[in-house]
């Protein structure tokens, strides 16, 4: 990975109620790249994203964004940093009491004193970028899942962030919407000159748009590389994950005793 990284994570540990979630994570996110973090459900991907955004504090190690240690920032510093970050939540997290237009304008109005005409132009530009300029008057409950995700994307890029974070951006989308969101993530990253971190377990779509992938399992990085490197790898975990094999290093069965002994025991009881 190149040396000019926007986000650097070193020896990161995080526990919740003494239960370890992340264990010795080291990751680099180079400027201008789209990097995916993949792994099964509950492996700590979203927690990692929240640590980068400063919503959680690590129990050990460091998270640096643009050369500043996020975990040591005070409230004001953290908010100043977040103005330069955008985050797309799993189901969009649109504000349901205001229109599509007001959702996208929210951050601009909160953080700037721009006149309303300029706010309107900016919002229309962002909505046009995601193909929903014509939907600016709709309320969030009138949008399909894919449209809501695109509006949330327009809202996340409202202030041209240097870092974009995506939490499961493809969850629950039909194949068409999935392709549209995938392409938007790539195009917007390149157009804004931003850096993107995408937490996902959608392999096929991600492999098409990302520059680099980290694989996580049980709170550790177990594999990493470009999509081509990972396709060629013989690593059994990566192979199982990429080709969706039911059994492998991640076992199909929840840990249990001997099956035949279990059957004999139930027969004896019967």
């Amino acid at each position, binding site marked *: 990975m190149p040396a000019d990284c926007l986000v650097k994570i070193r020896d990161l540990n995080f526990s919740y109620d003494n239960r370890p979630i992340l264990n010795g994570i080291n990751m680099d996110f180079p400027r201008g790249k789209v990097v995916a973090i993949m792994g099964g459900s509950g492996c700590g991907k979203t927690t990692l994203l929240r640590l980068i*955004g400063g*919503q959680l504090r690590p129990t050990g190690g460091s998270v640096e964004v643009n050369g500043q240690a996020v975990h040591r920032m005070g409230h004001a510093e*953290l*908010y*100043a940093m*977040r*103005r330069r*970050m955008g*985050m797309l*939540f*799993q*189901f969009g*997290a*649109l*504000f*349901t*009491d205001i229109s599509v237009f007001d959702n996208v304008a*929210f*951050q601009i109005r*909160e*953080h700037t004193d721009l006149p309303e005409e300029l706010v309107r132009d900016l919002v229309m530009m962002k909505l046009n970028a995601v193909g929903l300029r014509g939907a600016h008057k709709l309320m969030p409950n009138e949008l399909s899942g894919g449209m809501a995700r695109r509006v949330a994307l327009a809202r996340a890029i409202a202030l041209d962030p240097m870092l974009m974070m995506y939490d499961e951006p493809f969850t629950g989308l039909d194949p068409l919407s999935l392709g549209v969101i995938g392409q938007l993530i790539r195009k917007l990253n390149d157009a804004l000159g931003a850096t993107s971190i995408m937490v996902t377990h959608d392999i096929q779509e991600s492999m098409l748009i990302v520059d680099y992938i980290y694989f996580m399992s049980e709170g550790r990085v177990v594999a990493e590389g470009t999509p081509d490197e990972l396709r060629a790898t013989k690593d059994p975990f990566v192979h199982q994950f990429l080709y969706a094999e039911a059994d492998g290093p991640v076992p199909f069965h929840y840990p249990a005793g001997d099956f035949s002994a279990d059957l004999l025991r139930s027969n004896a009881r019967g």
Partner: protein
Amino acid sequence: MDSLRNLLVGLGSRVTDRIWRLGFAARFFAAILGYSAQTFLRPQLLLREIWFSGVLSLIIILVSGLFVGLVLGLQGYETLQRYGSSEALGILVALSLVRELGPVVAGLLFASRAGSAVTAEIGLMKATEQLKAMDMMAVNPLARVVAPRFWGGVISMPLLAALFSMMGVFGGYLIGVVFIGVDEGAFWSQMQASVDFREDVLNGVIKSFVFGVAVSLIAVFEGYDSVPTAEGVSRAITRTVVTSALAILALDFVLTSFMFRSL
């Protein structure tokens, strides 16, 4: 022995959980007060909440006030006429409403109508990650969502209680004067002579303000602290209504015992 120990451990943890939650609520209240200046600097946010908590509660408050006044008129007349003092109906209706029924019943209705709505709204915003999204946009949810809703409730509550009392007095007048035929002059003049502005009206306003603070705080806290699931939000709404009702009745007793010590 083990079951006794488990019982004690369970009891202890429930008590410490409650104390911890009370401490969290106190810190939460302090944080809301800290962000209050921002709320008053953005009056459009505050007006929106006064609209939702206050104006949209008007129908239930006015209708309930009228019915409470009608019943007070009937019951009051029935009792007073036994002692030949049915002209005092105006005093009875006005004092009952201004001192007690206005603030208390309006508070209970306010908790059910506006308090539950505020808890549901904040709880659902939490469950759908809207609060988290706001926080990630460097906009503090306590300042942007919670504090305006709290102050919207605090400002609305005394006004609603006053309107409740006004409708109640009108209800008492309708029954007593219009339908039963109590002397109109006696009804109003005795009321005017006996209801003291500071002792009765102002104390009623103070009560309704205190109830407004209690109900609004409980509503925003339960929403903010709810478990972010459908079941969690529904439980939070129930807790808002139950806790608010108990808080209003307990506070009413405490305030009454301080305000009317000469009785």
